[in-house]
């Protein structure tokens, strides 16, 4: 005889549980953490490179970099002044998950840091579904990607706490309708805090880093 057993359990429950564990590990060490997500080439590593020198003498920062292969990004973060930089190679996985971040946290003496920056794998779909346990999720959109991305990747735009719009120095050269882009963002994520900037020229960088420092201070 067949019996129906009701379950109603979220499919990514196991990951969510681990994310909660990661969060409490970070909290008990007094570390504030952000998860930076974006498509490949949007400027995740460049933003981190430009952010680190501006946080010097203010915050002790560790960076965890996720990529399918190579340690190029962690090397760049270390060179830019991260007190620790750990590379996670996902070996083909298109996103970081809570298990991978746990592995990286185990390699760090968390009491030595104020801020942990996690750079997710370049991808606008999968990272949105896997919570890591970080305090805030940040999305970087970049001008050359085009103004239709909120409409095409709603899952990513909906879940984030702050939006960086990178490469604004390229606005004169590409057709990017800011009001069309912003309308899509507003529907998906009403009132999300936004930082238009250029990691290349430095324009807008201070507003972003001031906000970040403020977030860490508020948490304390």
């Amino acid at each position: 005889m067949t019996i129906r057993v009701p379950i109603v359990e979220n499919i990514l429950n196991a990951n969510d549980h681990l994310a909660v564990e990661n969060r409490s590990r970070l909290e008990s060490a007094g570390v504030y953490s952000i998860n930076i997500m974006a498509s490949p080439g949007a400027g995740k590593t460049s933003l981190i490179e430009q952010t680190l020198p501006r946080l010097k003498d203010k915050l002790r920062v560790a960076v965890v970099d996720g990529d399918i292969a190579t340690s190029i990004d962690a090397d760049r973060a270390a060179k830019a002044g991260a007190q620790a930089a750990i590379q996670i190679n996902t070996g083909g996985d298109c996103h970081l998950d809570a298990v991978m971040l746990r592995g990286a946290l185990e390699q760090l003496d968390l009491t030595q840091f104020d801020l942990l920056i996690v750079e997710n794998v370049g991808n606008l779909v999968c990272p949105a579904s896997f919570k890591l346990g970080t305090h805030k999720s940040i999305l970087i959109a970049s001008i050359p990607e085009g103004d239709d991305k909120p409409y095409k990747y709603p899952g990513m735009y909906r879940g984030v706490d702050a939006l960086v719009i990178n490469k604004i120095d390229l606005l004169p050269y590409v057709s990017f309708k800011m009001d069309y882009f912003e309308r899509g963002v507003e529907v998906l994520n009403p009132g999300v805090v936004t930082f238009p900037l250029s990691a290349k020229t430095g324009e807008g960088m201070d507003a972003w880093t001031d906000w970040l420092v403020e977030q860490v201070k508020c948490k304390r």
Partner: protein
Amino acid sequence: MHELAVTQSILDISLRHAQKAGAKKITGINLVIGEFASIVDDSVQFYWELYAQGTIAQNAQLHFERIAGEMTCTNCKLSFHPKDTDFSCPDCKSEFVQITKGDEFRVDSIDVE
């Protein structure tokens, strides 16, 4: 998107609940997947046949209940299915809308013997 991890999760959840219920066999797994959850049924089915082998769920049928995406206008309260990149309300044209259905992503129940 990441059907491999998802399939593993579905199997773990199903086996855990089947064990609790003292089941000998899982014959069906009922999934509820919203339109915005971007899961490809065929891929899950493909991985399932590999993963579930040798478990009490190996002959289980996967049933996918699809929930269509829905947005609701915060102005006139109309609920509608969004068309491509047009998120505005088809009636009053307001751009203040909220996603009200389509996020579902869960194992609803299992059928066991």
